[in-house]
């Protein structure tokens, strides 16, 4: 009995190169088309007053994409622009890493030790609903330098997220894995290091990715609120606020897009790091 039935209807699998697949992918084309249409509409909308005379309500006030592109062309060569990238990244990474270094151990400790959780979780839960930015004024007073106060608020932004995710992840590990390890003679330390820790890894990366998003929001706001006021704080937030004060609308949009790209790069870096350190989650 022939194992593989060769039948007249069987068709040879069609070998299509990656580029052909990309080309045939209608979803991609529709996406690109949509973005282009949006840009065109934006252009027409904001140039409407020049051509027709009256200004459209919202779009009219925003500079058109062509002006923004030109402004970006000029700004790219200014060292200040890249400096603000560098400063913002420094602040984000500083606050973010601090939050992970403090938050992950605290989350794990709370998950493992019942008494520690019962003491530290209530105050943690009381403080969590306070939006991180509400801490900015208090932190400006408390910390001596402007830099440290921004770092503190950035830390808070990512701290609450990572602790909640680690705590949730550590406590939802399949009990059977712990039991299997116990019956193989695992001590308390073995259970923690070999089961709880790897088991919580996915939640750590989820918490970090969300935390990174919040950190960018907080840094931007802190730079606007504090940087804008006193001496030049630098950073993309200040860059946007400064452009607003200086009245050049195009640079505002340039700043917005730049910080969007920066945010996207950092969260995809975390996702990449996650795939790297968790090969076991891939299906094939």
């Amino acid at each position: 009995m022939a194992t593989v039935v060769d039948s007249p209807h069987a068709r040879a699998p069609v070998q299509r190169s990656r580029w052909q697949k990309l080309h045939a992918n209608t979803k991609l084309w529709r996406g690109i088309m949509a973005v282009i249409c949006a840009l065109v509409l934006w252009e027409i909308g904001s140039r409407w007053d020049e051509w027709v005379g009256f200004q459209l309500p919202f779009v009219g006030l925003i500079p058109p994409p062509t002006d923004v592109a030109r402004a970006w062309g000029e700004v790219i060569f200014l060292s200040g622009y890249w400096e603000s990238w560098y400063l913002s990244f420094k602040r984000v990474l500083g606050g973010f890493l601090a939050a992970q270094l403090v938050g992950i151990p605290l989350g794990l400790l709370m998950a493992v030790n019942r008494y520690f959780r019962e003491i530290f979780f209530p105050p943690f839960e009381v403080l969590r609903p306070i939006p991180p930015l509400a801490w900015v004024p208090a932190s400006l007073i408390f910390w001596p330098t402007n830099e440290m106060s921004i770092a503190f608020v950035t830390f808070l932004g990512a701290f609450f997220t990572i602790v909640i995710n680690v705590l949730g992840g550590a406590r939802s590990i399949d009990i059977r894995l712990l039991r299997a390890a116990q019956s193989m003679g695992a001590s308390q330390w073995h259970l923690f290091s070999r089961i709880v820790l790897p088991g919580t890894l996915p939640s750590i990366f989820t918490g970090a990715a969300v935390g990174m998003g919040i950190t960018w929001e907080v840094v931007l706001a802190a730079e606007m609120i504090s940087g804008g006021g006193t001496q030049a704080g630098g950073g993309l937030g200040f860059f946007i606020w400064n452009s607003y004060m200086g009245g050049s609308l195009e640079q505002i949009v340039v700043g917005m897009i730049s910080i969007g790209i920066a945010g996207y790069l950092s969260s995809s870096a975390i996702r990449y790091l996650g795939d790297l350190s968790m090969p076991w989650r891939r299906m094939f």
Partner: protein
Amino acid sequence: MAEEHTQSKAGETAVISGGRIELRDVSKGYGDEWQHEQVIESLSIEIEPGTLSAVVGPSGCGKSTLVNLVAGFETADSGTIRVDGKPVTGPGHDRMVVFQETALMPWLTAYQNIVFGPKLRGDLKGSALVNEAERLLDKVGLTEFRDKYPLQLSGGMQRRAELARALINQPLLMIMDEPFRGLDAMTRELMQEFFLRLFEEYRRTNLFVTSEIEEAIFLADRLVVLSNRPATVREIIEIELPRPRALEMLSSPEAYDYKRRAMEILHEEALKSFTSASGQTEFLEAYSKRGDL
């Protein structure tokens, strides 16, 4: 008391005595004063070393709780559980559990899962451990898959990896908690045959919990039929089919007789679990109208 385990050459049966299980008047319940749920009520079983006893019972009658008690994950409210005379105090590698829908560590490859126990305890080291692991991998037919992660293995392969992980710890008692549940019928049949060859070669005392009666008859020396919740032993049916077992034996008259006896008891118990759970009287009448009971 356990006789020294003789190192088995490939193929030669490893003679193991020890792994006698005694449960006497074991009871276990959950919940507090208002919603107290008695799961096991004065249950007593004695399992001879080197035999495979299948535990069957209506769904939700407490079979998994029995597994947890013998494995030491939970402690009984009353009664005693002894393995080779020693009371069970907590989990230990003398009683290895193979869980229902496999509990392999997702972040370890098949090989790393298997060597997890011995490496942890430091029983076997270096080349001895590697040889033993390789031998078991070959025995369960996963040699080419040794570096694959559990997510990349099929259901059948995951079960075999977990079997190897249990066997490498050379347990006195293997506890199987419905290990082939969730597999499609074909893979299940092949896994049963595979497990049987493994058992008949290693002859480790085995407590095999299942809800499939045919599977129990095919694999076991004795059938322990449990009652509805709170579970106690309703009847013990000795399976005198000769060993090594073959699939054809399942259609022999004795096998059908065992099945009918077991089905009758379990039908009665299942009905109780149906009526007490949802309390529909119409169903009982509709069912009895058919003149089956």
